[in-house]
Protein backbone atom coordinates (compact mmCIF):
# COMPACT_ATOMS: atom_id res chain seq x y z
CA UNK A 1 0.00 0.00 0.00
CA UNK A 2 1.18 3.49 -0.83
CA UNK A 3 1.84 5.91 1.99
CA UNK A 4 0.37 8.91 0.19
CA UNK A 5 -1.56 9.34 -3.01
CA UNK A 6 -1.94 12.87 -4.39
CA UNK A 7 -4.87 12.82 -6.78
CA UNK A 8 -5.94 15.00 -9.68
CA UNK A 9 -2.94 17.30 -9.60
CA UNK A 10 -1.47 19.44 -12.32
CA UNK A 11 1.98 17.92 -12.26
CA UNK A 12 4.88 20.30 -12.92
CA UNK A 13 7.81 17.94 -12.65
CA UNK A 14 10.78 20.34 -12.36
CA UNK A 15 12.21 19.66 -15.83
CA UNK A 16 10.50 22.65 -17.43
CA UNK A 17 8.40 20.38 -19.62
CA UNK A 18 4.68 21.17 -19.93
CA UNK A 19 2.48 20.34 -16.97
CA UNK A 20 0.21 17.32 -17.16
CA UNK A 21 -2.69 16.06 -15.11
CA UNK A 22 -2.46 12.92 -13.02
CA UNK A 23 -1.84 11.30 -9.66
CA UNK A 24 1.34 10.93 -7.70
CA UNK A 25 2.19 8.01 -5.41
CA UNK A 26 4.61 8.02 -2.49
CA UNK A 27 5.98 5.00 -0.65
CA UNK A 28 8.93 4.67 1.70
CA UNK A 29 9.85 8.32 1.38
CA UNK A 30 10.20 8.13 -2.39
CA UNK A 31 8.05 8.78 -5.41
CA UNK A 32 6.69 5.47 -6.66
CA UNK A 33 4.38 6.72 -9.43
CA UNK A 34 4.15 10.03 -11.25
CA UNK A 35 1.17 10.45 -13.54
CA UNK A 36 -1.73 8.24 -14.50
CA UNK A 37 -4.53 7.25 -12.17
CA UNK A 38 -3.78 5.52 -8.91
CA UNK A 39 -6.16 3.59 -6.68
CA UNK A 40 -7.29 5.49 -3.63
CA UNK A 41 -5.97 2.76 -1.35
CA UNK A 42 -3.26 4.64 0.47
CA UNK A 43 -2.64 5.58 4.08
CA UNK A 44 -3.30 9.17 3.14
CA UNK A 45 -5.06 10.61 0.11
CA UNK A 46 -4.66 14.27 -0.79
CA UNK A 47 -6.96 15.81 -3.36
CA UNK A 48 -4.93 18.29 -5.40
CA UNK A 49 -7.73 19.17 -7.81
CA UNK A 50 -7.05 22.57 -9.39
CA UNK A 51 -3.62 22.78 -7.83
CA UNK A 52 -0.06 22.31 -8.96
CA UNK A 53 2.00 19.40 -7.68
CA UNK A 54 5.70 20.26 -7.93
CA UNK A 55 9.04 19.21 -6.48
CA UNK A 56 9.81 20.89 -3.18
CA UNK A 57 11.62 24.19 -3.63
CA UNK A 58 15.36 24.35 -2.94
CA UNK A 59 16.79 27.53 -1.42
CA UNK A 60 20.50 27.75 -2.24
CA UNK A 61 21.45 30.70 -0.06
CA UNK A 62 20.40 30.65 3.59
CA UNK A 63 21.87 31.16 7.04
CA UNK A 64 19.78 28.69 9.02
CA UNK A 65 22.92 27.19 10.60
CA UNK A 66 21.88 28.05 14.16
CA UNK A 67 18.12 28.25 13.76
CA UNK A 68 17.90 24.62 12.64
CA UNK A 69 19.22 23.61 16.04
CA UNK A 70 16.27 25.16 17.90
CA UNK A 71 13.75 25.24 15.06
CA UNK A 72 14.20 22.22 12.83
CA UNK A 73 11.38 23.45 10.60
CA UNK A 74 13.24 26.66 9.69
CA UNK A 75 10.00 28.55 10.11
CA UNK A 76 8.53 30.05 8.09
CA UNK A 77 10.61 28.87 5.10
CA UNK A 78 9.02 25.42 5.14
CA UNK A 79 5.46 26.67 4.75
CA UNK A 80 6.48 28.50 1.57
CA UNK A 81 7.26 25.12 0.02
CA UNK A 82 10.99 25.09 0.68
CA UNK A 83 12.02 21.49 1.35
CA UNK A 84 15.81 21.83 1.07
CA UNK A 85 18.08 24.63 2.25
CA UNK A 86 21.76 25.29 1.62
CA UNK A 87 23.31 26.95 4.66
CA UNK A 88 26.83 27.87 5.69
CA UNK A 89 27.06 30.59 3.05
CA UNK A 90 29.32 33.65 2.93
CA UNK A 91 32.33 31.99 4.65
CA UNK A 92 30.36 31.38 7.85
CA UNK A 93 29.39 27.97 9.20
CA UNK A 94 29.07 26.60 12.71
CA UNK A 95 31.52 23.79 11.92
CA UNK A 96 34.30 22.92 11.90
CA UNK A 97 34.74 25.11 14.96
CA UNK A 98 36.87 24.66 18.05
CA UNK A 99 35.15 25.51 21.31
CA UNK A 100 37.53 28.39 22.00
CA UNK A 101 36.56 30.05 18.71
CA UNK A 102 32.81 30.01 19.28
CA UNK A 103 32.50 33.53 20.74
CA UNK A 104 34.36 35.13 17.83
CA UNK A 105 32.41 33.27 15.19
CA UNK A 106 29.09 34.05 16.87
CA UNK A 107 29.99 37.73 16.87
CA UNK A 108 30.73 37.52 13.15
CA UNK A 109 27.36 35.91 12.53
CA UNK A 110 25.74 38.68 14.53
CA UNK A 111 27.62 41.42 12.72
CA UNK A 112 27.23 40.10 9.19
CA UNK A 113 23.89 38.36 9.25
CA UNK A 114 22.27 40.50 11.95
CA UNK A 115 21.31 37.68 14.26
CA UNK A 116 20.62 38.34 17.94
CA UNK A 117 22.57 36.86 20.86
CA UNK A 118 19.63 34.69 21.80
CA UNK A 119 19.87 32.77 18.54
CA UNK A 120 23.16 31.31 19.77
CA UNK A 121 23.26 31.75 23.52
CA UNK A 122 21.41 29.03 25.36
CA UNK A 123 19.09 28.16 22.49
CA UNK A 124 21.00 24.95 21.85
CA UNK A 125 23.85 22.90 23.24
CA UNK A 126 27.18 23.23 21.47
CA UNK A 127 28.01 19.55 21.32
CA UNK A 128 30.39 19.52 18.38
CA UNK A 129 33.61 20.82 17.00
CA UNK A 130 33.99 18.82 13.81
CA UNK A 131 31.69 18.96 10.80
CA UNK A 132 30.44 15.39 11.16
CA UNK A 133 29.40 16.03 14.74
CA UNK A 134 27.55 19.21 13.75
CA UNK A 135 25.60 17.23 11.18
CA UNK A 136 24.93 14.59 13.82
CA UNK A 137 23.38 17.32 15.97
CA UNK A 138 21.02 18.18 13.12
CA UNK A 139 19.96 14.61 12.34
CA UNK A 140 16.55 13.77 13.69
CA UNK A 141 15.79 17.44 14.41
CA UNK A 142 15.11 18.80 10.96
CA UNK A 143 11.84 18.78 9.05
CA UNK A 144 13.47 19.83 5.79
CA UNK A 145 16.61 18.68 4.05
CA UNK A 146 19.88 20.45 4.63
CA UNK A 147 22.76 20.88 2.22
CA UNK A 148 25.52 22.38 4.38
CA UNK A 149 28.51 24.35 3.21
CA UNK A 150 31.76 24.51 5.16
CA UNK A 151 32.77 28.09 5.82
CA UNK A 152 36.23 29.29 4.89
CA UNK A 153 36.39 31.56 7.94
CA UNK A 154 36.04 28.83 10.62
CA UNK A 155 38.31 26.61 8.55
CA UNK A 156 41.06 29.23 8.85
CA UNK A 157 40.34 29.81 12.55
CA UNK A 158 40.67 26.08 13.24
CA UNK A 159 44.05 25.84 11.55
CA UNK A 160 45.58 29.28 12.20
CA UNK A 161 43.98 30.41 15.44
CA UNK A 162 44.22 34.16 16.01
CA UNK A 163 46.47 34.52 12.96
CA UNK A 164 43.47 33.70 10.78
CA UNK A 165 42.39 37.29 11.36
CA UNK A 166 45.77 38.72 10.40
CA UNK A 167 47.61 37.14 7.53
CA UNK A 168 47.88 34.77 4.60
CA UNK A 169 48.35 31.09 5.35
CA UNK A 170 51.69 29.32 5.14
CA UNK A 171 52.06 26.19 2.99
CA UNK A 172 51.70 23.80 5.91
CA UNK A 173 48.60 25.66 7.08
CA UNK A 174 47.10 25.45 3.62
CA UNK A 175 47.71 21.70 3.63
CA UNK A 176 46.02 21.46 7.02
CA UNK A 177 43.03 23.40 5.71
CA UNK A 178 42.85 21.07 2.74
CA UNK A 179 42.72 18.07 5.06
CA UNK A 180 40.05 19.72 7.18
CA UNK A 181 37.93 20.63 4.16
CA UNK A 182 38.30 17.09 2.86
CA UNK A 183 36.94 15.78 6.17
CA UNK A 184 33.98 18.18 5.91
CA UNK A 185 33.17 17.01 2.41
CA UNK A 186 33.45 13.37 3.41
CA UNK A 187 31.04 14.08 6.27
CA UNK A 188 28.45 15.65 3.95
CA UNK A 189 29.37 19.24 3.14
CA UNK A 190 28.17 20.26 -0.31
CA UNK A 191 30.97 22.74 -0.80
CA UNK A 192 32.96 25.64 0.58
CA UNK A 193 31.85 29.22 1.07
CA UNK A 194 34.09 32.26 1.17
CA UNK A 195 33.72 36.04 1.21
CA UNK A 196 35.69 38.97 -0.13
CA UNK A 197 33.41 41.53 1.48
CA UNK A 198 32.31 40.83 4.99
CA UNK A 199 33.56 42.51 8.14
CA UNK A 200 33.70 41.15 11.65
CA UNK A 201 32.33 42.77 14.81
CA UNK A 202 35.37 45.07 14.96
CA UNK A 203 34.80 46.13 11.35
CA UNK A 204 37.93 44.25 10.35
CA UNK A 205 37.93 41.85 7.40
CA UNK A 206 36.70 38.35 8.21
CA UNK A 207 39.45 35.70 8.08
CA UNK A 208 38.53 34.44 4.61
CA UNK A 209 39.52 37.83 3.21
CA UNK A 210 43.13 37.34 4.28
CA UNK A 211 43.53 34.33 2.00
CA UNK A 212 45.81 34.63 -0.98
CA UNK A 213 44.77 33.14 -4.28
CA UNK A 214 47.08 30.14 -3.69
CA UNK A 215 45.04 29.22 -0.62
CA UNK A 216 41.72 29.37 -2.43
CA UNK A 217 43.18 27.45 -5.34
CA UNK A 218 44.37 24.69 -2.99
CA UNK A 219 40.95 24.47 -1.36
CA UNK A 220 39.27 24.43 -4.77
CA UNK A 221 41.49 21.48 -5.65
CA UNK A 222 39.96 19.58 -2.74
CA UNK A 223 36.48 20.58 -3.92
CA UNK A 224 37.50 19.13 -7.27
CA UNK A 225 38.12 15.73 -5.66
CA UNK A 226 34.40 15.68 -4.81
CA UNK A 227 33.04 17.84 -7.66
CA UNK A 228 31.63 20.22 -5.05
CA UNK A 229 30.56 23.87 -5.07
CA UNK A 230 32.53 27.01 -4.25
CA UNK A 231 30.24 29.84 -3.09
CA UNK A 232 31.66 33.36 -3.04
CA UNK A 233 30.54 36.80 -1.93
CA UNK A 234 32.34 39.09 -4.39
CA UNK A 235 32.81 42.84 -4.09
CA UNK A 236 29.27 43.33 -5.39
CA UNK A 237 29.42 47.09 -4.89
CA UNK A 238 31.92 47.38 -7.75
CA UNK A 239 31.08 46.10 -11.21
CA UNK A 240 34.71 46.01 -12.30
CA UNK A 241 35.82 43.92 -9.35
CA UNK A 242 32.82 41.61 -9.67
CA UNK A 243 33.71 40.99 -13.30
CA UNK A 244 37.26 40.19 -12.20
CA UNK A 245 35.89 37.73 -9.64
CA UNK A 246 33.83 36.07 -12.36
CA UNK A 247 37.08 35.51 -14.24
CA UNK A 248 38.78 34.16 -11.12
CA UNK A 249 35.91 31.76 -10.41
CA UNK A 250 35.96 30.61 -14.01
CA UNK A 251 39.63 29.74 -13.76
CA UNK A 252 39.02 27.77 -10.57
CA UNK A 253 36.05 26.05 -12.17
CA UNK A 254 38.04 25.04 -15.23
CA UNK A 255 41.17 24.07 -13.33
CA UNK A 256 39.42 21.86 -10.81
CA UNK A 257 36.21 20.86 -12.55
CA UNK A 258 33.96 22.46 -9.95
CA UNK A 259 30.79 24.52 -10.08
CA UNK A 260 31.01 27.98 -8.56
CA UNK A 261 28.37 30.48 -7.58
CA UNK A 262 28.46 34.06 -6.39
CA UNK A 263 25.92 36.22 -4.67
CA UNK A 264 24.43 38.70 -4.48
CA UNK A 265 23.90 40.15 -7.94
CA UNK A 266 21.15 42.71 -7.93
CA UNK A 267 19.83 45.45 -10.15
CA UNK A 268 19.72 49.12 -9.25
CA UNK A 269 18.82 52.19 -11.25
CA UNK A 270 21.86 53.78 -9.63
CA UNK A 271 24.16 51.40 -11.52
CA UNK A 272 22.08 50.27 -14.49
CA UNK A 273 24.94 48.63 -16.37
CA UNK A 274 26.05 46.46 -13.45
CA UNK A 275 23.96 43.39 -14.17
CA UNK A 276 24.38 43.51 -17.96
CA UNK A 277 28.15 43.78 -17.68
CA UNK A 278 28.46 40.98 -15.14
CA UNK A 279 26.13 38.71 -17.08
CA UNK A 280 28.02 39.34 -20.29
CA UNK A 281 31.21 38.09 -18.63
CA UNK A 282 29.38 35.15 -17.07
CA UNK A 283 28.16 34.15 -20.55
CA UNK A 284 31.69 34.39 -21.93
CA UNK A 285 32.96 32.12 -19.19
CA UNK A 286 30.18 29.58 -19.62
CA UNK A 287 31.07 29.53 -23.32
CA UNK A 288 34.60 28.51 -22.30
CA UNK A 289 33.15 25.62 -20.33
CA UNK A 290 33.38 27.16 -16.87
CA UNK A 291 30.50 27.10 -14.39
CA UNK A 292 30.03 30.45 -12.66
CA UNK A 293 26.45 30.81 -11.49
CA UNK A 294 25.28 34.29 -10.43
CA UNK A 295 22.56 34.09 -7.80
CA UNK A 296 19.76 36.60 -8.19
CA UNK A 297 17.00 37.20 -5.68
CA UNK A 298 13.39 37.68 -6.67
CA UNK A 299 12.32 40.25 -4.10
CA UNK A 300 12.95 43.98 -4.34
CA UNK A 301 15.27 45.67 -1.88
CA UNK A 302 13.97 48.10 0.71
CA UNK A 303 15.80 50.72 2.74
CA UNK A 304 15.16 50.79 6.45
CA UNK A 305 16.29 53.47 8.89
CA UNK A 306 15.61 55.26 12.14
CA UNK A 307 16.53 58.80 13.13
CA UNK A 308 18.90 57.33 15.68
CA UNK A 309 21.47 56.90 12.91
CA UNK A 310 22.47 59.17 10.04
CA UNK A 311 21.13 57.06 7.22
CA UNK A 312 22.19 58.03 3.72
CA UNK A 313 18.51 58.05 2.93
CA UNK A 314 18.63 61.70 4.08
CA UNK A 315 21.69 62.78 2.15
CA UNK A 316 19.57 64.70 -0.36
CA UNK A 317 18.25 66.76 2.57
CA UNK A 318 21.35 68.52 3.93
CA UNK A 319 19.66 69.95 7.03
CA UNK A 320 18.28 66.56 8.04
CA UNK A 321 21.55 64.77 7.30
CA UNK A 322 23.58 67.33 9.25
CA UNK A 323 21.40 67.08 12.34
CA UNK A 324 21.18 63.30 12.24
CA UNK A 325 24.98 63.10 12.25
CA UNK A 326 25.22 65.05 15.49
CA UNK A 327 25.85 63.50 18.91
CA UNK A 328 22.64 62.04 20.27
CA UNK A 329 21.89 64.62 22.98
CA UNK A 330 22.48 67.52 20.61
CA UNK A 331 20.41 65.83 17.94
CA UNK A 332 17.49 65.25 20.28
CA UNK A 333 17.56 68.86 21.47
CA UNK A 334 17.45 70.16 17.91
CA UNK A 335 14.70 67.79 16.82
CA UNK A 336 12.60 69.02 19.75
CA UNK A 337 13.24 72.66 18.91
CA UNK A 338 10.22 74.27 17.21
CA UNK A 339 12.30 76.39 14.87
CA UNK A 340 14.45 73.48 13.77
CA UNK A 341 11.39 71.31 13.36
CA UNK A 342 9.80 73.88 11.05
CA UNK A 343 12.99 74.11 9.04
CA UNK A 344 13.21 70.35 8.67
CA UNK A 345 9.60 70.06 7.56
CA UNK A 346 9.96 72.93 5.09
CA UNK A 347 13.06 71.30 3.62
CA UNK A 348 11.38 67.93 3.25
CA UNK A 349 8.07 69.26 2.00
CA UNK A 350 8.88 72.31 -0.15
CA UNK A 351 5.82 74.23 -1.18
CA UNK A 352 3.66 71.85 0.79
CA UNK A 353 4.58 68.86 -1.38
CA UNK A 354 4.34 65.99 1.12
CA UNK A 355 5.16 63.19 -1.32
CA UNK A 356 8.73 62.54 -0.12
CA UNK A 357 7.79 60.79 3.14
CA UNK A 358 4.10 60.03 2.63
CA UNK A 359 4.64 56.44 1.49
CA UNK A 360 7.20 55.54 4.12
CA UNK A 361 5.93 52.77 6.38
CA UNK A 362 6.46 52.27 10.08
CA UNK A 363 8.62 49.18 10.32
CA UNK A 364 8.98 48.85 14.07
CA UNK A 365 7.41 50.66 17.00
CA UNK A 366 6.35 49.99 20.57
CA UNK A 367 2.86 50.82 19.33
CA UNK A 368 1.94 47.70 17.36
CA UNK A 369 -1.02 49.48 15.76
CA UNK A 370 1.39 51.69 13.82
CA UNK A 371 3.48 48.91 12.31
CA UNK A 372 3.04 48.56 8.58
CA UNK A 373 1.07 51.79 8.18
CA UNK A 374 2.09 54.61 5.88
CA UNK A 375 3.23 57.93 7.29
CA UNK A 376 0.77 59.76 5.06
CA UNK A 377 -2.25 58.23 6.75
CA UNK A 378 -0.76 58.47 10.24
CA UNK A 379 -0.05 62.15 9.58
CA UNK A 380 -3.63 62.76 8.45
CA UNK A 381 -4.96 61.22 11.66
CA UNK A 382 -2.65 63.36 13.74
CA UNK A 383 -3.32 66.56 11.86
CA UNK A 384 0.26 66.97 10.73
CA UNK A 385 2.32 66.28 7.62
CA UNK A 386 4.33 63.11 6.91
CA UNK A 387 7.56 64.88 7.83
CA UNK A 388 5.95 66.06 11.06
CA UNK A 389 4.75 62.55 11.80
CA UNK A 390 8.21 61.18 11.12
CA UNK A 391 9.66 63.55 13.70
CA UNK A 392 6.86 63.09 16.24
CA UNK A 393 6.87 59.30 16.14
CA UNK A 394 10.64 59.21 16.43
CA UNK A 395 10.73 61.54 19.42
CA UNK A 396 7.88 59.74 21.17
CA UNK A 397 10.00 56.60 21.26
CA UNK A 398 13.40 58.14 21.83
CA UNK A 399 14.34 57.67 18.15
CA UNK A 400 13.59 53.95 18.38
CA UNK A 401 10.97 53.86 15.64
CA UNK A 402 12.15 52.29 12.39
CA UNK A 403 10.82 53.27 8.99
CA UNK A 404 10.82 51.54 5.66
CA UNK A 405 11.24 52.94 2.17
CA UNK A 406 9.95 50.02 0.12
CA UNK A 407 11.17 48.77 -3.26
CA UNK A 408 14.10 51.15 -3.63
CA UNK A 409 16.22 48.75 -5.69
CA UNK A 410 15.99 45.54 -7.71
CA UNK A 411 12.40 46.64 -8.13
CA UNK A 412 11.76 47.01 -11.86
CA UNK A 413 9.94 43.87 -13.06
CA UNK A 414 10.80 44.62 -16.67
CA UNK A 415 14.47 44.28 -15.77
CA UNK A 416 14.25 41.58 -13.08
CA UNK A 417 11.84 39.30 -14.95
CA UNK A 418 14.11 38.64 -17.94
CA UNK A 419 17.04 38.33 -15.57
CA UNK A 420 15.36 35.57 -13.56
CA UNK A 421 14.37 33.82 -16.78
CA UNK A 422 17.95 33.85 -18.09
CA UNK A 423 19.32 30.29 -18.27
CA UNK A 424 22.63 31.44 -16.81
CA UNK A 425 21.01 32.94 -13.73
CA UNK A 426 20.60 30.88 -10.58
CA UNK A 427 17.48 32.00 -8.71
CA UNK A 428 18.44 32.31 -5.05
CA UNK A 429 20.17 34.69 -2.66
CA UNK A 430 17.21 34.80 -0.28
CA UNK A 431 19.50 35.03 2.77
CA UNK A 432 16.85 33.01 4.63
CA UNK A 433 17.29 33.26 8.38
CA UNK A 434 19.58 36.31 8.23
CA UNK A 435 19.06 40.07 8.61
CA UNK A 436 16.05 39.05 10.63
CA UNK A 437 15.58 42.36 12.41
CA UNK A 438 15.80 44.38 9.20
CA UNK A 439 13.53 42.56 6.77
CA UNK A 440 11.88 39.22 6.08
CA UNK A 441 13.93 36.78 4.06
CA UNK A 442 11.08 34.35 3.42
CA UNK A 443 8.59 34.03 0.59
CA UNK A 444 10.87 34.78 -2.36
CA UNK A 445 9.52 31.65 -4.06
CA UNK A 446 5.92 32.84 -3.75
CA UNK A 447 7.00 36.23 -5.07
CA UNK A 448 8.55 34.54 -8.10
CA UNK A 449 5.16 33.14 -9.04
CA UNK A 450 3.00 36.14 -8.15
CA UNK A 451 5.19 38.81 -9.73
CA UNK A 452 7.06 37.14 -12.56
CA UNK A 453 4.75 34.28 -13.63
CA UNK A 454 1.25 35.66 -13.05
CA UNK A 455 1.66 39.43 -13.20
CA UNK A 456 4.55 39.93 -15.59
CA UNK A 457 4.51 36.64 -17.50
CA UNK A 458 8.28 36.67 -17.76
CA UNK A 459 8.43 32.95 -16.98
CA UNK A 460 5.98 30.16 -17.57
CA UNK A 461 4.80 28.22 -14.56
CA UNK A 462 6.94 25.28 -15.62
CA UNK A 463 10.01 27.45 -16.15
CA UNK A 464 9.66 29.08 -12.74
CA UNK A 465 9.29 25.71 -11.01
CA UNK A 466 12.33 24.38 -12.86
CA UNK A 467 14.43 27.38 -11.79
CA UNK A 468 13.92 26.63 -8.08
CA UNK A 469 13.84 22.82 -8.19
CA UNK A 470 15.44 20.86 -11.02
CA UNK A 471 17.96 23.54 -11.96
CA UNK A 472 19.01 24.08 -8.36
CA UNK A 473 19.49 20.37 -7.70
CA UNK A 474 21.54 20.08 -10.89
CA UNK A 475 23.69 23.13 -10.17
CA UNK A 476 24.47 21.98 -6.66
CA UNK A 477 24.70 18.28 -7.37
CA UNK A 478 21.91 17.16 -5.08
CA UNK A 479 21.17 13.65 -6.31
CA UNK A 480 17.64 12.34 -6.21
CA UNK A 481 16.01 15.73 -5.66
CA UNK A 482 14.47 18.54 -7.65
CA UNK A 483 12.35 16.43 -10.00
CA UNK A 484 9.14 14.44 -9.80
CA UNK A 485 10.33 11.10 -11.12
CA UNK A 486 9.79 7.59 -9.80
CA UNK A 487 12.57 6.71 -7.39
CA UNK A 488 13.34 10.31 -6.49
CA UNK A 489 12.96 11.62 -2.94
CA UNK A 490 9.34 12.50 -2.21
CA UNK A 491 9.90 16.24 -1.66
CA UNK A 492 6.64 17.72 -2.91
CA UNK A 493 4.78 21.01 -2.69
CA UNK A 494 1.15 21.43 -3.62
CA UNK A 495 0.10 24.99 -4.40
CA UNK A 496 -2.55 27.05 -6.12
CA UNK A 497 -0.91 28.69 -9.16
CA UNK A 498 -3.51 31.45 -9.12
CA UNK A 499 -2.83 32.58 -5.57
CA UNK A 500 0.66 31.53 -4.50
CA UNK A 501 2.45 34.59 -3.16
CA UNK A 502 4.39 35.88 -0.20
CA UNK A 503 2.33 37.22 2.67
CA UNK A 504 2.70 40.66 4.17
CA UNK A 505 5.82 41.37 6.15
CA UNK A 506 5.11 41.47 9.88
CA UNK A 507 7.11 41.43 13.10
CA UNK A 508 7.05 38.19 15.08
CA UNK A 509 8.38 37.61 18.56
CA UNK A 510 9.23 33.97 18.09
CA UNK A 511 12.99 34.00 18.46
CA UNK A 512 14.57 32.42 21.55
CA UNK A 513 13.76 34.50 24.63
CA UNK A 514 10.98 36.25 22.71
CA UNK A 515 13.25 38.10 20.35
CA UNK A 516 11.73 39.92 17.39
CA UNK A 517 12.24 39.22 13.73
CA UNK A 518 10.39 40.04 10.52
CA UNK A 519 8.57 37.19 8.80
CA UNK A 520 6.18 36.56 5.96
CA UNK A 521 3.64 33.77 5.86
CA UNK A 522 2.79 31.89 2.71
CA UNK A 523 -0.23 32.37 0.48
CA UNK A 524 -1.57 29.74 -1.87
CA UNK A 525 0.56 26.86 -0.58
CA UNK A 526 -1.55 23.85 0.38
CA UNK A 527 0.76 21.03 1.47
CA UNK A 528 4.49 20.51 1.91
CA UNK A 529 5.91 16.99 1.92
CA UNK A 530 9.52 16.13 2.76
CA UNK A 531 10.87 12.65 2.09
CA UNK A 532 7.32 11.32 2.02
CA UNK A 533 6.07 12.92 5.24
CA UNK A 534 3.65 15.85 5.44
CA UNK A 535 5.49 18.59 7.30
CA UNK A 536 3.07 21.48 6.82
CA UNK A 537 -0.42 21.99 5.45
CA UNK A 538 -2.67 24.99 5.11
CA UNK A 539 -5.32 23.25 7.17
CA UNK A 540 -3.18 21.62 9.85
CA UNK A 541 -0.14 23.87 10.06
CA UNK A 542 3.20 22.41 11.09
CA UNK A 543 3.34 18.71 11.95
CA UNK A 544 5.66 16.90 14.32
CA UNK A 545 7.40 15.05 11.50
CA UNK A 546 11.16 15.49 11.23
CA UNK A 547 11.93 13.69 7.98
CA UNK A 548 14.74 15.98 6.81
CA UNK A 549 18.13 14.52 5.89
CA UNK A 550 21.59 15.70 5.01
CA UNK A 551 21.26 15.70 1.23
CA UNK A 552 24.75 14.55 0.41
CA UNK A 553 25.25 12.02 3.16
Amino acid sequence: MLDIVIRNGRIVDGTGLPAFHGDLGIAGGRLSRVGGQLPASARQVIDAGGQVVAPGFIDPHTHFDAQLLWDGQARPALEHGVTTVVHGNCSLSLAPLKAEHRPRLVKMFQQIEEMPDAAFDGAFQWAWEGFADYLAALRGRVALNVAPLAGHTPLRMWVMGADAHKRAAKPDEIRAMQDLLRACLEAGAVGLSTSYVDMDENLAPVPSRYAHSEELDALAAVLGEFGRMLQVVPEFYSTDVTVARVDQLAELSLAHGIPTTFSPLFDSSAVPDNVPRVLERVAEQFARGARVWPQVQTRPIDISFSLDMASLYFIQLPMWYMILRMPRAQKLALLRNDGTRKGLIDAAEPGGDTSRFARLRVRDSHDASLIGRMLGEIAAERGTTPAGALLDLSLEEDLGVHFLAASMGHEDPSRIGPLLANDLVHVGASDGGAHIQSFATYGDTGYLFSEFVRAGRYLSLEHAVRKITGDTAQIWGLPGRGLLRPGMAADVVIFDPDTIARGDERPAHDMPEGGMRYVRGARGVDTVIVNGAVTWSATGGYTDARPGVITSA
Partner: protein
Amino acid sequence: MAEPVIDGAIVAPGHDGQAVLVVRVRHDNGGFDTVTLDADRARKLLEDCAAESAEQLRGQPWRRLLTVLER
Protein backbone atom coordinates in the same frame (compact mmCIF):
# COMPACT_ATOMS: atom_id res chain seq x y z
CA MET B 1 45.91 64.09 -18.71
CA ALA B 2 43.17 65.58 -16.59
CA GLU B 3 42.31 63.90 -13.33
CA PRO B 4 39.02 61.99 -13.07
CA VAL B 5 36.37 63.81 -11.08
CA ILE B 6 33.24 62.92 -9.17
CA ASP B 7 30.35 63.48 -11.52
CA GLY B 8 27.52 62.90 -9.08
CA ALA B 9 26.20 60.66 -6.35
CA ILE B 10 22.84 59.09 -5.61
CA VAL B 11 21.37 57.03 -2.82
CA ALA B 12 20.59 53.38 -3.49
CA PRO B 13 19.61 50.41 -1.36
CA GLY B 14 22.36 48.09 -0.23
CA HIS B 15 22.10 44.33 -0.07
CA ASP B 16 21.43 44.46 3.67
CA GLY B 17 18.64 47.04 3.47
CA GLN B 18 20.80 49.98 4.47
CA ALA B 19 21.12 53.00 2.19
CA VAL B 20 24.39 53.29 0.29
CA LEU B 21 25.83 56.09 -1.79
CA VAL B 22 26.69 55.33 -5.40
CA VAL B 23 29.34 57.79 -6.53
CA ARG B 24 29.83 58.26 -10.27
CA VAL B 25 33.34 59.11 -11.48
CA ARG B 26 33.93 60.73 -14.86
CA HIS B 27 37.24 60.04 -16.61
CA ASP B 28 39.03 62.38 -18.97
CA ASN B 29 38.32 60.11 -21.93
CA GLY B 30 34.58 60.37 -21.34
CA GLY B 31 34.25 57.04 -19.57
CA PHE B 32 32.36 56.60 -16.31
CA ASP B 33 32.76 54.35 -13.32
CA THR B 34 30.86 53.94 -10.07
CA VAL B 35 31.96 53.33 -6.50
CA THR B 36 29.52 52.36 -3.79
CA LEU B 37 30.08 53.66 -0.27
CA ASP B 38 28.45 52.64 2.98
CA ALA B 39 27.18 55.25 5.43
CA ASP B 40 30.46 55.69 7.29
CA ARG B 41 32.54 56.10 4.18
CA ALA B 42 30.00 58.42 2.59
CA ARG B 43 30.03 60.64 5.66
CA LYS B 44 33.83 60.76 5.54
CA LEU B 45 33.76 61.67 1.86
CA LEU B 46 31.37 64.54 2.54
CA GLU B 47 33.60 65.77 5.33
CA ASP B 48 36.75 65.53 3.23
CA CYS B 49 35.05 67.43 0.42
CA ALA B 50 33.47 69.98 2.78
CA ALA B 51 30.17 69.05 1.15
CA GLU B 52 26.81 69.23 2.85
CA SER B 53 24.93 67.21 0.28
CA ALA B 54 25.50 64.66 -2.45
CA GLU B 55 25.10 67.37 -5.06
CA GLN B 56 28.08 69.25 -3.68
CA LEU B 57 30.36 66.29 -4.41
CA ARG B 58 30.15 67.05 -8.12
CA GLY B 59 33.50 68.18 -9.52
CA GLN B 60 35.57 66.91 -6.60
CA PRO B 61 38.77 65.05 -7.54
CA TRP B 62 38.51 61.28 -7.53
CA ARG B 63 41.42 61.04 -5.09
CA ARG B 64 38.99 61.96 -2.33
CA LEU B 65 37.48 58.56 -2.88
CA LEU B 66 40.80 56.80 -2.42
CA THR B 67 41.12 58.29 1.04
CA VAL B 68 37.79 56.97 2.24
CA LEU B 69 38.17 53.60 0.53
CA GLU B 70 41.47 53.02 2.28
CA ARG B 71 39.91 53.45 5.71
